[in-house]
């Protein structure tokens, strides 16, 4: 292993030379706390610890449920690290954009109306309801194709439940009509 010996040789030479050592110490200040190399695409956490963005990103992915600073265990997140731009670096690109960005979280806005969904005529969506006038079961068959009030992606589970319910009510209505016709 040629590099091994040459590297340890050079480190020995450094100890002999005081000037080099102090230079070394200065360089140490800008070493990434994870790879121990000079920080590349440097970012700093709000708690003040320096990392290469690729290193920190990998750590955040490794423990995505508990994202803490490797040095001081303060809570950190991708959005709260600060990229560092030195002089002479012409491309001042945010290093956080280089690594594939984390997929955005999805959240569902709570429903604005608290009443029964079948009575929901208020928010300008498209409704299709049918029923036989005299019967109070008409509302059961109303379909709700309205958009959500704020255009927020809807949780898949909720949508599925709605779908299932309207199908169920449709069948109840059909059976009821057939029974009426036969009776």
């Amino acid at each position, binding site marked *: 292993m*040629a590099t091994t010996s040459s*590297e*340890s040789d050079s*480190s020995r030479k450094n100890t002999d030379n005081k000037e080099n050592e102090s230079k070394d110490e200065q360089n140490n200040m800008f070493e990434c706390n994870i*790879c121990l190399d000079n920080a590349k695409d440097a970012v700093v956490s709000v708690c003040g*610890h320096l990392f290469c963005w690729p290193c920190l990103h990998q750590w955040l992915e*490794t423990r995505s449920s508990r994202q803490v600073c*490797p*040095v001081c265990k303060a809570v950190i997140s991708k959005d709260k690290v600060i990229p560092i731009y030195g002089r002479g670096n012409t491309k001042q690109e945010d290093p956080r954009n280089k690594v594939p960005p984390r997929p955005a979280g999805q959240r569902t806005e709570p429903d604005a109306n608290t009443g029964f969904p079948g009575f929901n005529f208020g928010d300008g969506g498209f409704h299709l309801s049918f029923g036989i006038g005299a019967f109070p079961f008409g509302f059961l068959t109303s379909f709700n194709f309205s958009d959500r009030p704020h255009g927020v992606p809807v949780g898949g589970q909720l949508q599925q439940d709605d779908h299932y319910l309207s199908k169920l009510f449709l069948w109840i209505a059909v059976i009821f009509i057939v029974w009426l016709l036969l009776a």
Partner: protein
Amino acid sequence: MAGKTPSEKRLHKELISLVKEPPPGMIVDADQAEQNLNTWTINMQGAEGTLYDGELFQLQFKFGSSYPFESPEVTFVGQNIPVHPHVYSNGHICLSILTDDWSPALSVQSVCLSIISMLSSCKEKKRPPDNSFYVKTCNKNPKKTKWWYHDDKV
């Protein structure tokens, strides 16, 4: 060697600094480590004025390819396994930084220091209460054990 992985690069840096400035009472077997960067043996002396004063121990570090994002596998090996409430007779160590509380900012040096301070603060030399059961049933890799960290006194 042009194609050194980040993990090898970091291990190399750690080895150089451990050889250059070893913590008191610790000597890394540098030749062995240079031959195989993934397994290191560290000779450790019990600290002066503690229950382990004058004793010699051997610590083995095994590094996976995702080091330092994953913790190393650290066990006591050799003839003399310290008798300590957190050290099993097969060399496994119950220490939170070796699993749940691992951080990539920790190093071989800081793990060694933690272990030596764990030994030094011991008041009474004894094995863990579940030693014989654990040693019979555990996996060879201590990282496979679901450790239950409950005692932070020693």
